[in-house]
């Protein structure tokens, strides 16, 4: 029991720091750069992503264990995972609408963006490719969501700071955000030290 808890915790820590969704694999980057800017919006987005990843893991774990051994799996994999994500999307949407309408008003706009996101599909696919079992799926999904939220906070902090400086015209907006994330990614590599598997 203690061993299982330790393994869970270690895998979640790995997903947060060593395999951070944004800084080591650039998952969820396109939407992120136009997404939430305030801290509470980022927290809401991050919690939504974590919850959806964990819920979807339940379905995808089962499907993965059943179909992983076929050679045509790589063709049908996205379709199966997307169907799972659609089911979770519908469940979450109707649950929010019926039981927490106030919450739905605030986060309803973000829901499609948060569900069909690299930061959700990425960890699902990664866990599938590495053949994790059920608890490892959950640990990796949880850690990945938390790591994504922390990375978003760091990046939004940096963007806030960059807005106050006088950047050269060619670098304003997208280029400097990418450069900032690139330098932070350099820092994260000091923790990892080797090329992560795709």
């Amino acid at each position, binding site marked *: 029991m203690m061993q299982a808890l330790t393994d869970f915790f270690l895998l979640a820590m790995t997903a947060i720091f060593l395999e951070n969704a944004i800084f080591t694999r650039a998952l969820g980057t396109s939407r992120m*750069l*136009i997404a*939430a*800017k*305030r801290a509470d919006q980022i927290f809401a987005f991050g919690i939504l992503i974590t919850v959806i990843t964990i819920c979807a893991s339940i379905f995808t774990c089962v499907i993965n264990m059943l179909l992983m051994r076929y050679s045509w799996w790589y063709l049908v994999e996205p379709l199966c995972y997307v169907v799972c994500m659609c089911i979770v999307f519908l469940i979450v949407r109707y649950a929010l609408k019926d039981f927490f309408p106030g919450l739905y008003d605030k986060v309803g706009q973000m829901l499609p963006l948060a569900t069909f996101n690299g930061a959700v599909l990425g960890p699902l696919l990664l866990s599938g490719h590495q053949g994790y079992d059920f608890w490892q799926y959950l640990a990796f999904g949880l850690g990945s969501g938390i790591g994504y939220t922390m990375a978003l906070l*760091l990046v939004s*902090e*940096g963007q*806030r*700071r*960059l*807005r106050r*400086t*006088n*950047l*050269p*015209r060619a*670098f*304003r*907006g*997208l*280029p*400097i955000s990418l*450069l*900032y994330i690139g*330098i*932070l990614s*350099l*820092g994260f*590599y*000091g*923790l*990892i*030290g*080797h090329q992560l598997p795709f």
Partner: protein
Amino acid sequence: MQADAKNKKRAQQPGHRRMVNVLIAIAPILAMSCYYYGTRVLYMALAAIGTGLAAELICVKLRGRRVELSDGLSSVVTALLLTMLLPATMPMLLVIFGVLFAVVVIKQPFGGYGNNPFNPAACAFAFLSICWPYYTYHYPMPFDHTLAAWGDNAGKLLTGPAMSLKMGSLPRYDMMDMLLGNAPGGLGTTNILLLCACGLFLLATKTVKPSISLGFLASCGLFAFLFPRITTSRLDSLAYELMAGTIVFGAFFLITDPVTAPKKRLAQLVYGVLAGVITMLFRHFGAFSQGLVFAVIFANALMPLVERGCSKLRFGKYVKSTPIVAEEGAPDEA
């Protein structure tokens, strides 16, 4: 208009004086490393300074601004700091690449002097250690004056004490050697006594803030005392961890960069302690034997959070953070 220009000039003077003080502090370290390793050090320093000045000039002109003294001074400081971190056998081409990276990638795209969120010397050293780890982490023995200036020095390289600590064993050099700089290491990072003397000079002239340096050193020491990597004794661990690698150099030269450090005292203390904790965590769990440069990157990224948190602590409810209006992409496109 004239009052504006005069005020601007007066505000820039402290920046100039600070950089000149840093250069004065680096000079004896540079002289000492020439004493250890011969004339190659001078060639490295000259190559670094030349590349830094040329790159800075070209980039400032590309940005369409006038070249000012602060640009030149800051690029000289960055070049010399980077040279002091590297081993004496670093190939010249890689020194040039490092300085180019520091100026062209870390400093100029953010707006040049005063606007860079990350310390250029630390980031350039991180880049060099990732791309060419063999050359960056293998050092020659001191007092070896036979280093070829342009040729290949690969036959004479050893790993330093930091690598021994990473493996969990005592370094091969005793504490007196490490204090006096008789151990292998980066050019300016081995002679701890001289580094402390220069650090005291910087503290006395108020060029660096004691809250940052001493907070950093204290937190590193406490972490090394509480979680030793070597098995002999905690005091041993404390001494060796502080003396091996770039911690003392970083405490006085890298972390205290006024552009990337907080302005208020409480924030500075928290920043120093945070940087120390992250450095020691990188040393324990990271992939490289020295974690300071990567920790500097993270500390610089977390600095605005620290500053905001500390000012909220002091003033409580009187400080309200204004919500930032979300902007569309490319706000300034014609």
